[in-house]
């Protein structure tokens, strides 16, 4: 006998908070600082299942470092970390303004996510290679060997742009700093990071790779290929998933985050996996060091889900007030990474409000000076862009005949265009 059935219904996940509402952050599944255990670096991937559902946190609400993950880190190193985060935030703020002034065409901030890239950078060694997305500028700004003005020249696509004006702003490339060329195509770098790590293993090297991806891009096929290849070949790679809860306007649930974690995917593929407070500088440092040590010891890959919040707009082309509450970040339970590390250092007596303000002002001055220097080499407004010929270079190692022909045609067309402009 047939039983009458309810019609089937399609489930389409929704965030709890839309404009004018409040987000219910209970979905985050949080744990207090110090609660997560610290496994040995040779832990079997299957034995990290609990950690893929927990949350590694070191800094408690009073700014104390607690629990087994509290890293051995000198205050000097943490001060360096705090400055790197402040530097990143100052850079972002200034470049946001520069975009509004039409000095650059486009920009993407990492507001609220500064701890992840800057602390991770401190855990890597020279020669390691990061495969970042467009929101890990902290990897570059944590370094003191990359002139800020050079980054701005890329943003301005000017005569000094190391990318010769070929790439959208923020798509940096710094081989010498272990920063792989950024692509607009999401997730592609995640599997490339695995290949780089495999290459290091093939050559018997000691360098490791670090791949980066956002929560939304985990839905791309390359996320899955990266996990499979990393597991199959036990590649020396750290697979970082930055879960900032948003992919442009899409809440992380639409990427597959509802009632599960992104770290759990790693365990499912046989990869040791951690879920970590991404706004806790000490936790990021500790987890990154743990994963790096694991990779460098031939123990295989680690997947880390960094739980954080995209505090700013997705990009300068985005208005988040159209899809989420305007005050969402204020209510995000993991707070602001800068405020949290500051509080810790102040409690240690290694930092003060006064020093904080002084540093912030000094960094703002550094950014302003760098912008001034970069603008000497041109901006989008004044047309001081790379030479036309550079458009045809580097397509191939050596320029084929058809590109030499097209370069000549482009020169003639450009001369005619300029002559026409001068006449009118």
């Amino acid at each position: 006998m047939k039983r009458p059935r309810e019609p089937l219904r399609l489930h389409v996940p929704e965030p709890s908070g839309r404009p004018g509402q409040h987000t219910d952050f209970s979905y985050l599944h949080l744990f207090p600082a110090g609660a997560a255990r610290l496994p040995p670096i040779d832990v079997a991937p299957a034995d990290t299942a609990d950690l893929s559902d927990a949350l590694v946190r070191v800094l408690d609400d009073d700014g104390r470092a607690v629990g087994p993950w509290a890293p051995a880190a000198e205050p000097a190193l943490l001060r360096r970390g705090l400055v790197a985060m402040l530097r990143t935030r100052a850079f972002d703020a200034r470049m946001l303004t520069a975009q509004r002034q039409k000095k650059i065409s486009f920009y993407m901030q990492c507001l609220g996510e500064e701890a992840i890239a800057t602390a991770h950078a401190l855990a890597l060694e020279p020669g390691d290679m990061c495969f970042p997305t467009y929101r890990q500028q902290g990897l570059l700004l944590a370094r003191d060997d990359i002139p800020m003005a050079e980054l701005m020249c890329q943003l301005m696509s000017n005569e000094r742009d190391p990318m010769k004006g070929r790439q959208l702003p923020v798509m940096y490339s710094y081989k010498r700093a272990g920063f792989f060329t950024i692509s607009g195509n999401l997730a592609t770098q995640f599997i490339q990071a695995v290949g780089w790590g495999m290459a290091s293993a093939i050559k018997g090297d000691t360098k490791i790779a670090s791949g980066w991806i956002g929560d939304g891009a985990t839905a791309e096929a390359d996320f899955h290929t990266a996990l499979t290849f990393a597991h199959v070949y036990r590649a020396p790679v750290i697979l970082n998933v930055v879960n900032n809860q948003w992919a442009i306007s899409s809440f992380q649930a639409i990427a597959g985050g509802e009632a599960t974690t992104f770290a759990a995917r790693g365990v499912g593929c046989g990869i040791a996996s951690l879920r970590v407070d991404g706004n806790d500088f000490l936790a990021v440092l500790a987890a990154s060091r743990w994963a790096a040590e694991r990779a460098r010891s031939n123990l295989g890959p680690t997947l880390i889900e960094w739980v954080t919040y995209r505090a700013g707009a997705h990009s300068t082309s985005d208005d988040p007030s159209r899809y989420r509450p305007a005050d969402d970040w204020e209510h995000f339970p993991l707070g602001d990474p800068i405020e949290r590390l500051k509080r810790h250092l102040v409690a240690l007596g290694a930092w003060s409000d006064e020093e904080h303000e002084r540093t912030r002002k000094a960094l703002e001055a550094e950014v302003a000076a760098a912008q001034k220097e970069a603008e000497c080499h041109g901006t989008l407004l004044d047309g001081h862009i790379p030479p036309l010929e550079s458009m045809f270079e580097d397509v191939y190692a050596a320029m084929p005949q058809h590109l030499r022909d097209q370069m000549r045609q482009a020169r003639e067309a450009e001369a005619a265009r300029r002559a026409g402009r001068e006449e009118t």
Partner: protein
Amino acid sequence: MTMIQALRSAMDVMLERDPNVVVFGEDVGYFGGVFRCTEGLQARHGRSRVFDAPISEGGLVGVAVGMGAYGLRPVVEVQFADYFYPASDQIVSEAARLRYRSAGDFTAPITIRMPCGGGIYGGQTHSQSPEALFTHVCGIRTVMPSTPYDAKGLLIASIECDDPVIFLEPKRLYNGPFDGHADQPVVPWSKHPASEVPEGYYTLPLETAAVARPGRDVTVLAYGTMVFVAEAAVAESGVDAEIIDLRSLWPLDLPAIVESVKKTRRCVVVHEATRTSGFGAELLALVQEHCFYHLEAPIERVTGWDTPYPHALEWAYFPGPARVAAALRRVMED
């Protein structure tokens, strides 16, 4: 050597010669490849140089790009050209653009081998000729040999090339030349002079076409299996055609094409791939641009039909010698 042996020899030579060369793909390692092209290479060079990979074309090419960025020289096999599509993003958005977008900071010196072409009752997903999908992509090179001698020399040159190379291997030619006469017994490569292949290292230049058959009346632009089909068509039509085997599809050897067409004043383009927006369209455009005042007849093209590759109607689809011969006669009538 057969073409299979020649390709294997090329990889063997390069594995020996350059410690940065690695070879991998589905069934490529222990088993030696479904077409035997990598047989014995893992035993000879070790598992860290020649290895099996998961069934993931996007993954294969993606890790190759990462390895190239590290400094290796990966030679990847996609089992059938029909299955490259999942790797499209890595080929088009990544491998092809790495040098350009990073202003030379990173490069992708990778070679992607793909058995291609029909004439083997391969049906829809074991017969395609997707070369036009690659020639349209700036930053990659597309190469297709037609003989064992060319296969080895061009593969070594491709592996050594610092640009990403799509190396298309007509599987119909793996064991012997094929002129489109499916009713006649297959002749092994041993009966063909181009099966004389040196054991050691040699290269053939990319961007260099070969005159497969000199002639006076009409220029046939062909590559892969179609070179032999065109030779049969010449014999059947009695038209003294000059057959140019392009070998490098893009970038190509334009001077060789222009020189030949200016001499013969007629041109027929032949490929297995479907017609519309196929690579033949680019060849027609180039001949028209560079040889317009020398042409005495419209340029013809003989290609696969604009349909998916069928199974039962293989020989009605495959551009065989009769169709090519008819085109040769037509251009001579104008």
